């Protein structure tokens, strides 16, 4: 009953930070990075062995957190999520194609068919730079996941506007494309859960960076003849940001550990973590902007780039309201179920 990282996990986390510092352009210039920089990072991640069966949810969340802290961009999230969901990670670059016009993040009600794959998907991340799509569809009304090669001629990719320019998003149309394989609802559920956790972990990383930067600024910036961080209004704001960030990481770590240990509550903890982090990361980001004041309202300052990453990850795999509704329904259903 503890949530301490093992030595190997600590090593992995530190090594990935070193790798990102070496192989990635850094937060300051993340928006200038293009496919070449992302390819270079991807190659380094493959070389590192990030897509191996040995890595559990905890390790993948540690990686996602490091990505958020460095504003790294690569098809890591989709690739790692699919590998974890199927139990067969490989080095193929994967993007998850889930959202549909007019639809939300529930796995039911999708209009996409899978044999052959026919449908239109939105907000497909880095679609122009992946090898495969993991496409949510349905078979006889039940959720299913189809793998489609990105070079299939019946796939068309159009760029979509996005809040975070470092992570291009696309609309992808499948017009009778071949499914390399089709997996059942269990894989869909695992993909949704790990996807939510990785998105949350990345937000925690980005929020942690904003907290660190805001703290350092508050300890340095002077107004009214004193350091602004000596004012109780800002000390308390920063303390709240610290607690929010720290507890956000605790819940991600717990949910990941519950996944790896196959605990009975692993069914709902990813939703708890995603819902909490969605609100917590935004709160930390808003707090940081307030500490920075006007300077962070400039394009040049990096704060808005972390904020944008946080909002994009908040919306993927279900936002706070989506998961709160799901958890609320589950609480009600648990009571409605007759006992015995």
């Amino acid at each position, binding site marked *: 009953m*503890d949530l*301490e990282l093992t030595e190997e996990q600590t090593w992995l986390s530190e090594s990935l930070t070193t790798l990102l510092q070496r192989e990635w352009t850094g937060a300051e210039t993340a928006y200038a990075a293009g496919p070449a920089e992302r390819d270079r990072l991807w190659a380094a991640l493959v070389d590192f062995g990030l897509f191996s069966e040995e890595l559990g949810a905890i390790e993948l969340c540690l990686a996602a957190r490091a990505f958020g802290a460095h504003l790294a961009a690569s098809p890591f999230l989709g690739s790692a999520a699919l590998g974890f969901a199927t139990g067969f990670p490989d080095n193929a670059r994967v993007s998850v194609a889930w959202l549909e016009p007019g639809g939300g993040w529930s796995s039911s009600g999708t209009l996409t068919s899978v044999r052959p794959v026919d449908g239109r998907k939105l907000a497909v991340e880095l679609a122009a730079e992946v090898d495969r799509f993991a496409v949510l569809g349905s078979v006889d009304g039940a959720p299913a996941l189809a793998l489609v090669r990105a070079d299939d001629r019946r796939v068309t990719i159009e760029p979509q506007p996005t809040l975070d320019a470092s992570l291009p998003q696309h609309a992808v149309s499948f017009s009778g494309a071949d499914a390399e394989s089709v997996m059942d609802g269990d894989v869909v559920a695992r993909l949704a859960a790990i996807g939510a956790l990785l998105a949350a972990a990345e937000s925690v990383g980005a929020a942690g960076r904003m907290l660190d930067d805001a703290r350092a600024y508050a300890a340095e910036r002077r107004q009214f003849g004193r350091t602004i961080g000596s004012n*109780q209004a800002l000390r308390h704001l920063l303390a709240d940001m610290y607690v929010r960030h720290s*507890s956000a990481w605790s819940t991600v770590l717990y949910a990941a550990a519950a996944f790896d240990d196959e605990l009975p509550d692993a069914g709902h903890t990813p939703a708890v973590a995603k819902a*909490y982090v969605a609100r917590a990361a935004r709160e930390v980001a808003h707090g940081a902007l307030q500490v920075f004041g006007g300077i962070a309202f400039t394009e040049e300052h990096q704060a808005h780039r972390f904020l944008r990453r946080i909002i994009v990850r908040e919306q993927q795999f279900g936002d706070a309201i989506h998961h*709160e509704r799901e958890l609320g329904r589950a609480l*009600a259903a648990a*009571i409605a179920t007759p006992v015995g």
Partner: protein
Amino acid sequence: MRLRASSADQTLQDEVRAFLAEVLPTYADVPRALDDKMDTLRAWQAACYDAGYVGRAWPSEFGGGSRPAVEQIIVDQELAAAGAPEFANVVGLGVLGPSLLRFGTDVQRQRYIPPILSAKEIWCQGFSEPEAGSDLASLRARAVEHEDHFVLSGQKTWVSWGQYARWCGVLARTEQTGPRHRGISMLIVDMAAPGVEVRPMTQITGHAEFCELFLDDVIVPKDQLLGARGEGWKIAMYTLGHERGTAALPRQVKLRTWLDRLVREAGRRELDGRALLADPETQRALARSFIDIEVLRHHAYRTVGEYLSGGSVGPDSSGVKLLMGEAEQRLAATALDVLGPTLQHGDPAETAENEFWHETYLYSRAATVYGGTQQIQRNIIADRILALPQE
């Protein structure tokens, strides 16, 4: 990382559950009248102590079980899950007992610890004063050293269970010069000594579990000084941190039982011919409270884990305390929101349940005040974790 209960943990859980199934019904209905309530809580603690569920991790030479700290947490969580009453000696077990173990002499530990565990002697704490609340270091109670004793005078407040206590851990100023934090000592005061007067005060919940304590030239023998003279502040801070760090896990279990109770109640009560629980807004409000409690549990695992593996309870316990207050207050306010007009319908069959929620709500307002206010916790985090410049 270790989340899954070990087979030893599970055996212990099963043992506690079997014990509770057999023994708890005798004590489950705690009387409201204060004297009767105290008798029941004492008897309940004694029964649990005899079964090995009190002071399980405290040294066996002083009556404890010398078991790993995690076992007491497992036991406390089981007790909370079963809706067991609190222990009579909540201050002795949570605050002054740990201080005695850490700072007391062997003679003091032999004398005071065993009856704390068995509830034979109730303890209270005399920390806060009318003019020293959050600013505890400004306390004025004064102890003057003589040949073989101190003479203690002053006034204390928020003295839980003071009217039943045999002993009180009192913080008093022993040095009139030098830094104010260093001039404070911790004295063990005999509540039966001449010059000690206790006056219960009624709280907003209508109960009178707190007292004011008046100390008028009370003689305190020197062997009742805890730690060294001038070490009182250090002891108090250790004690309060300890309380914050370890209380969260049983507390989140308790909050979870209240949330489950609220969900059941919302499933049972109707408004305009429809179950309250059928409303998606109600479901989401309950879910937000559920998330708070879950995150408190996860965060407490992470921070307590460091303590269980030999670390101390550090300033992160302040973060746990902030989350604990937030979770409790949101749950209680959610109960008012969710039950809404049904609380006003005045159905006699609902009176006890309505009273429970009103009392839970009123009590929850203390959750961000006791044990150091939210503002004090934020100061601790700003100073000790974020290392921000002082005001």
